[in-house]
């Protein structure tokens, strides 16, 4: 059990090192796609850390991501703060916010939690827009840095790798075991002595932490930022769909899901720019009907069959 865990980590480390060479090899067009893919890999990996074992579907990714992008933009535009300081502050704010949301909602079960996170993300978006329009004057904010696309890519890679490593570490810890038990049966979890609320809140906070950092790091890419753009609810859905496509049962599921999705998405949005929403719908149907446990789940099924066939 433990040896295969280390093997998994070694493979992930090799992949991360290989991924580090992408900006040196690819042209700008492919690098730009890679940045998008890396952004989603980081977001989905941190999403799966919480939602995978517990089966609580969070649609709050957009809110955390938006906090990162918006705070960096406000701090740099209006208060001449450094990028790094604002990125740190945004991560802190998002983590605290996730803790508060968790304390308020993780007692809710299933669908109520989903709806609450969606509503919360929308509320923050409208609140920030309103404050921005009425009190802070300008509608848009500028994020001007010396970062190139390659720098942003590498920073996202570090975040994705950090999220993966943390997830791997948690999976092997008591906390990870507790989350698996919670995902199976919360009543049993309490009766074997697990403080279910604390376990869930801690994990939800890590999702908030990474979400904000990804939002902060990607902000320089857009240069000009509006609240409506960074707090997009679409992002929350994209994260869920890509993570489920890959398979939320394994930490490396999102990587398997994000890469094909981003490539097909790129093709679809170029060729059929008005049908992208329909494409999301189709992918969702595909997941529900054909890949309920994602690509990873299907691969594992095939692996089991091959092993049995070999005997």
């Amino acid at each position, binding site marked *: 059990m433990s040896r295969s865990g280390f093997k998994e980590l070694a493979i992930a480390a090799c992949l991360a090192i290989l991924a580090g060479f992408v900006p040196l090899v690819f042209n700008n067009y492919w690098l730009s796609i890679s940045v998008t893919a890396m952004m989603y890999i980081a977001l989905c990996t941190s999403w799966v850390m919480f939602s995978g074992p517990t089966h609580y579907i969070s649609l709050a990714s957009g809110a955390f991501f938006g906090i990162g992008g918006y705070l960096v933009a406000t701090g740099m535009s209006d208060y001449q703060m450094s990028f790094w300081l604002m990125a740190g502050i945004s991560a802190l704010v998002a983590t605290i916010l996730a803790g508060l949301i968790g304390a308020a909602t993780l007692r809710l079960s299933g669908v109520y939690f989903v709806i609450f996170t969606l509503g919360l993300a929308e509320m923050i978006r409208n609140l920030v827009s309103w404050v921005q329009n009425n009190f802070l004057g300008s509608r848009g904010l500028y994020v001007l840095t010396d970062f190139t696309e390659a720098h942003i890519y590498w920073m996202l890679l570090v975040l994705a790798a950090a999220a993966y490593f943390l997830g791997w570490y948690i999976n092997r810890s*008591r906390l990870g*075991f507790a989350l698996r038990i919670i995902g*199976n*049966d919360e*009543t049993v979890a*309490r*009766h*074997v*002595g697990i403080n279910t609320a604390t376990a869930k809140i801690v994990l939800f906070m890590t999702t908030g932490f990474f979400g904000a950092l990804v939002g902060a790091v990607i902000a320089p890419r857009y240069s000009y930022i509006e609240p409506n753009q960074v707090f997009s609810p679409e992002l929350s859905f994209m994260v869920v769909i890509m993570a489920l496509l890959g398979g939320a049962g394994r930490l490396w599921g999102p990587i398997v899901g994000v890469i094909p999705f981003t490539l097909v998405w790129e093709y679809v949005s170029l060729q059929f720019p008005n049908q992208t929403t329909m494409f999301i719908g189709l992918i969702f149907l595909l997941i529900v009907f054909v890949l309920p446990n994602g690509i990873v789940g299907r691969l594992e099924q095939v692996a089991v069959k091959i092993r049995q066939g070999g005997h």
Partner: protein
Amino acid sequence: MRYSGSALSVNGVTKRFGGLVAVDNMEFSVGEHEMVGIIGPNGSGKTTMMNMISGTFKPTSGSISMMGSRISDLPAQEITRRGVGRTFQLVRLLPSLSVLENVIAGAVFGHRKRWGREAEDHAHRMLERVGMDAMSYAPVSSLTYIDQKRVELARVLAGDPEILLLDEWLAGLNPTELETGIELIHDLRKEGRTVILVEHVMDAIRSLCDRCVVMSSGVKIAEGSPDVVLSDPEVIRAYLGDDDA
């Protein structure tokens, strides 16, 4: 509350669900190393009583104390950590975990905490104890009902509870399984464990329990040794109804 020398004491506990009084002013105590049965007809509040002891429900009024300190305000996980372990009326295993992991779950977070190799070894010992070690790596879905119950018992024992709550642990077993089941509980008794069991199987109650508490419509109607209690006219009436009914 003064420590009265009992492992668990239930003091004037009442539980209301809306207008329904499920448990009404219950009062009993369980000594250390004692095996006490809670019996009574269906719907008499036995399981509600168990749920209050384990912390699934909070009593509406009254208190429950363990070794003299009040536990009825604590959440379920805290009560487990203090040393109360329970099985469920409808057996509850963790379906996506293996048999061994199910038992480890009981060893990691409970009254005594173990982790890693130690937890695994301990879980194997518990499985051996209930005669299930050969199935350690099987998926839970492949187990028969009695085997599921045995695994659940192993999970509870893995937490080294001071007080064990068995909620109709023998229900739904066929005659051969029942024999195995009764034998297992007998072993617990021989170890000197403090056990509270809710049970309908009268043979088991006679042979296992030191004492019985009889409930009917949420109220305690009798208490004493199984033989005395089971021949009490009021208990017979509660089970079978009045002569003229």
